[in-house]
């Protein structure tokens, strides 16, 4: 790329970057095994100057991470979401609660029932609730409508709690969510929990995660059940025998049933699960989360904040776990046993790891054989940017690049610690950059979410959804087998060998055959086999 004069105005300096809108990716399969990753980050792909330091190759001895947690360049097709989106993903798996979006209908109508998390009990959380603010509410304020809506919903559905999410416009018109929720809480005797998640509050939805955790800390964890006990299903946690071995799992959302893949493992080693925050959990389970003796932190991205706060408030220690991949799962189980210092548990853990690993090895061999040496690009929203790396290594695959839409410096530090030298780490890649990265690195697989899926497939790059849309549980030993199978299905499909273009025949064989045919009675099938 030619040298640029930094003093030039923004648009002029970038003018040369205009290239064709089409990114050609012919010769998909001519993949070079020896990837030469340029040392100067500027040269990774064509992009805006302001975006260049958001990409960074891990090298030995250096500790640089990409620039992050910055405003996306306006006008880009950003893969990012809003603060409300961030709060929503954390809280919406709470199954017996109503998740009421206070704002115009659009905020609810594009986001209801998309979390992909499963429930063993109530299905209430899957409904889309909105106050459907109208023009006159914007002018005169939406508090009255909010109050009436909450009372109405409480009457119809008798939920264990109502979470009320603020959207952009609510922040502008100045509705006092806290006071309305407090008031309705008194009227109804139910839990009504405000979540101050105005969409524009930050460019990074991580703030939404944090605000969601704040709502849990302030209004739910460690609280007594409401007066209106009629609709509350609470099993009081008292001095049950397991209390010494009880734990919470933070940042596990039971997407596609992930928690159900982990649950039997934990039960077998002799711990009791107080609450999962928030996958397949009820309001009252979470309300008593303060009674657990340990917090496991699965999604460190969304729940590290909550774990720290609980450690401070309730003296609950925390350990990081990762149940993606057999090795990570084993390490996590060992860490739990080590924490409880229970010799029997330590023994059981080793036994389980041994038998599960043996069983897994047997079944996974075939996939490993298919996948060994294949390359992967990971571009996700959360902790998967690092927690998946080891899982791919176990399959013999090589991670070429990894990145997130909204990583914070500590997230990228974590990624740096996990990936091998030479791996590209990307922050907030937009659709165009992602296309160019796929074009350059030509990975065999992209792991990402729904918005990137068809971009990848259109380019002929196999795709695996590790987000809300996936269909099987990937956690634990059995989940790892599912994961290997899904990756194999994606990568080894014969469709990738089909050419996107018809090749014009150089020799018209059929015509030649006919012209030299002496016997006109000869059947077509003898000339063209199979016809």
């Amino acid at each position, binding site marked *: 790329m030619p040298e640029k004069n930094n003093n030039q105005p923004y648009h002029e300096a970038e003018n040369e970057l205009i290239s064709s809108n089409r990114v050609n990716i012919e010769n998909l399969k001519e993949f070079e095994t020896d990837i030469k990753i340029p040392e100067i980050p500027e040269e990774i792909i064509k992009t805006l100057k302001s975006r260049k330091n958001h990409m960074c190759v891990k090298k030995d001895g250096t500790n640089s991470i990409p620039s992050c947690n910055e405003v996306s360049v306006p006008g880009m097709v*950003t893969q990012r979401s809003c603060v409300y989106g961030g709060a929503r993903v954390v809280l919406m798996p709470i199954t017996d609660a109503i998740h009421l979006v206070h704002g*115009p209908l659009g905020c609810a109508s594009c986001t209801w029932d998309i979390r992909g998390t499963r429930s063993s009990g109530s299905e209430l959380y899957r409904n889309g609730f909105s*106050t*459907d603010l109208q023009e006159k509410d914007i002018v005169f304020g939406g508090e009255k409508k909010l109050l009436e809506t909450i009372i109405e919903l409480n009457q119809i559905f008798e939920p264990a709690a109502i979470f009320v999410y603020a959207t952009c416009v609510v922040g502008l018109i100045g509705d006092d969510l806290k006071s309305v929720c407090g008031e309705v809480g008194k009227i109804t005797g139910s839990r009504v929990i405000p979540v101050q998640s105005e*969409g524009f509050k930050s460019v990074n939805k991580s703030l939404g995660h944090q605000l969601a955790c704040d709502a849990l800390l302030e209004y739910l964890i460690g609280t007594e059940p409401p007066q209106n006990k009629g609709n509350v299903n609470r099993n009081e946690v008292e001095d049950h025998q397991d209390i010494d071995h009880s734990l919470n799992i933070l940042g596990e959302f039971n997407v596609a049933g992930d928690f159900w893949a982990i649950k039997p493992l934990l039960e077998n080693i002799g711990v009791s699960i107080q609450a999962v925050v928030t996958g397949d959990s009820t309001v009252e389970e979470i309300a008593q989360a303060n009674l657990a003796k340990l917090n496991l932190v699965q999604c460190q991205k969304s729940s590290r904040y909550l774990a720290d706060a609980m450690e401070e408030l309730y003296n609950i220690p925390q350990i990081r776990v990762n149940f993606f991949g057999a090795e990570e799962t084993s390490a996590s189980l060992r860490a739990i046993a080590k924490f409880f210092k229970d010799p029997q548990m330590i023994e059981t853990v080793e036994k389980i790891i041994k038998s599960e690993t043996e069983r897994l090895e047997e079944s996974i061999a075939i996939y490993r054989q298919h996948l060994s040496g294949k390359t992967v690009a990971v571009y996700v929203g959360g902790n998967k940017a690092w927690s998946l790396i080891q899982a791919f290594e176990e399959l013999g695959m090589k991670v070429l690049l990894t990145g997130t839409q909204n990583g914070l410096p500590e997230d990228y530090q974590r990624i740096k610690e996990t990936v091998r030298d030479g791996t590209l780490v990307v922050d907030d890649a937009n659709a165009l950059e992602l296309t160019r990265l796929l074009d350059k690195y030509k990975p065999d697989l992209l792991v990402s979410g729904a918005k990137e899926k068809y971009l990848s497939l259109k380019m*002929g790059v196999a795709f695996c959804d590790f987000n809300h849309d996936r269909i099987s549980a990937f956690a634990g030993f059995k989940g790892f087998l599912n994961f290997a199978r899904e990756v194999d299905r994606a990568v080894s499909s014969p469709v990738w060998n089909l050419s996107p273009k018809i090749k014009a025949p150089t020799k018209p064989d059929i015509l030649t055959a006919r012209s030299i045919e002496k016997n006109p009675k000869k059947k077509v099938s003898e000339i063209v086999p199979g016809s």
Partner: protein
Amino acid sequence: MYQALNNSNNDSFPDESGCDKKSEHPYQKKFAVVNPCRMCQPMGAVQALLGIEGAMPLVHGSQGCSTYMRFQLCRHFREPINVSSTSLSEGTVVYGGEENLIKALETIKIQYNPTLIGVTSSCLTETIGDDVERIIKKFRESYLKNHGEKFPPVVSISTPSYSGSHVEGYDKTLVALLENLTLPPESEHEPDMINLIPGNLSPADVEEIKEIIKLMEINGIIFTDNSESLNAPLTGSVDFLPSKGITLDEIRQAANSKITLTLSQHASSGGKLLNKRFGVPHAILPLPIGLENTDKFIETLSSLNYVENIPPTLERDRGRLLDGMVDSQAYTHGQRLAIYGDPDLVTGLVSFVVEMGMEPSIVATGTKSNQFHEDIKKITAKTSHDPVVINGGDLYDLHQQVKKTGADLLMGNSYGGRIAVAEDIPLVRVGFPIFDRVGAQRICILGYKGGLSLLDQLTNTIIQYYYDEAGYEL
């Protein structure tokens, strides 16, 4: 009237509209929307813009607006969808969105070089009071001065999410395009084109409309044409802007057309504008779903083209549809349907199923519309059916009504899947969004051919669900 089913306080329609005296809602739900059956205005605007060749939609608002819309659109069309955002955040909200909007326009030009940028506002920018028109005008002037060349056309569409729905958003976008781009007619120009506004349809439906007018030997400008951009073949490359669609030139020339035909009662403002401003005649037809509606469409086309004989291909397709209807009627007759979706779609479907002797027991739309209620009454007046009309309701209302009134079959988008499971009735998927089946972009229900494919699907669903493997009724 029953208030509960008209709880959406859409100010553009009087409150006493669309009510049905005989239905009582099980709960007097007055305030909450539970399981929405409509989207917000910017979504409709974006869908219209995706049918313009080389156009880039820009949502002036928080990042979540464009991201969640893209999510919905991607999973429905199974295509990469590009919608850019001005990425407003706390600071920009305090000082107004001007700086971000200008920066966004510059970035889009550099990165995508589109033929047109369509700026849709959001509840956020409407509330902070950004004067988008003024900002754009000022920006384009200074761009011309600084660069010596014109910035691509930018059309601003006012789409606050707190009023109307995606249906209005689509309509407003067509108006904005015509208002800003269409040139006065050339006097000596002999009109040989027609403007065709089909409404917000699936790519396959738009393609079917194009097929029909081609068979009728009519040149049409399709407002807007997503038939290629949202149903793209795999070529090994990615288009960041719609590779095909209505062109800017076609929009500019729209006043030279012989007539504007609108196939949607709710996307008719564009045709009205062309009529008022440039005197282009305007006719609104029902969406050509089913035999009679398609006949009406083709009769109108033939009158425009003075074609006396209908092309044999269309005669044949019509005969095939009628043949199919006769073959299926024993299965379909008397089946009770609950149909929900956008008003024009539901009206068209009701017209078709009534032709088949099916009974629409509930018809529902999330977008409140007087016209919808009138249209349904008009269709069912000729029959003995008296469906419950849910006008401006949600899927919770629909579900309660299905429990009460009963239905053998549901027709609508994927969100009805849970009602179907709960009530143990099948769901035939039409409309938007459809994310739990493949091929939403290929669903064709328009014209004789589309009608036949819908009919087969309906009938086979009934057979699958209500008959045993030997063909006996269960």
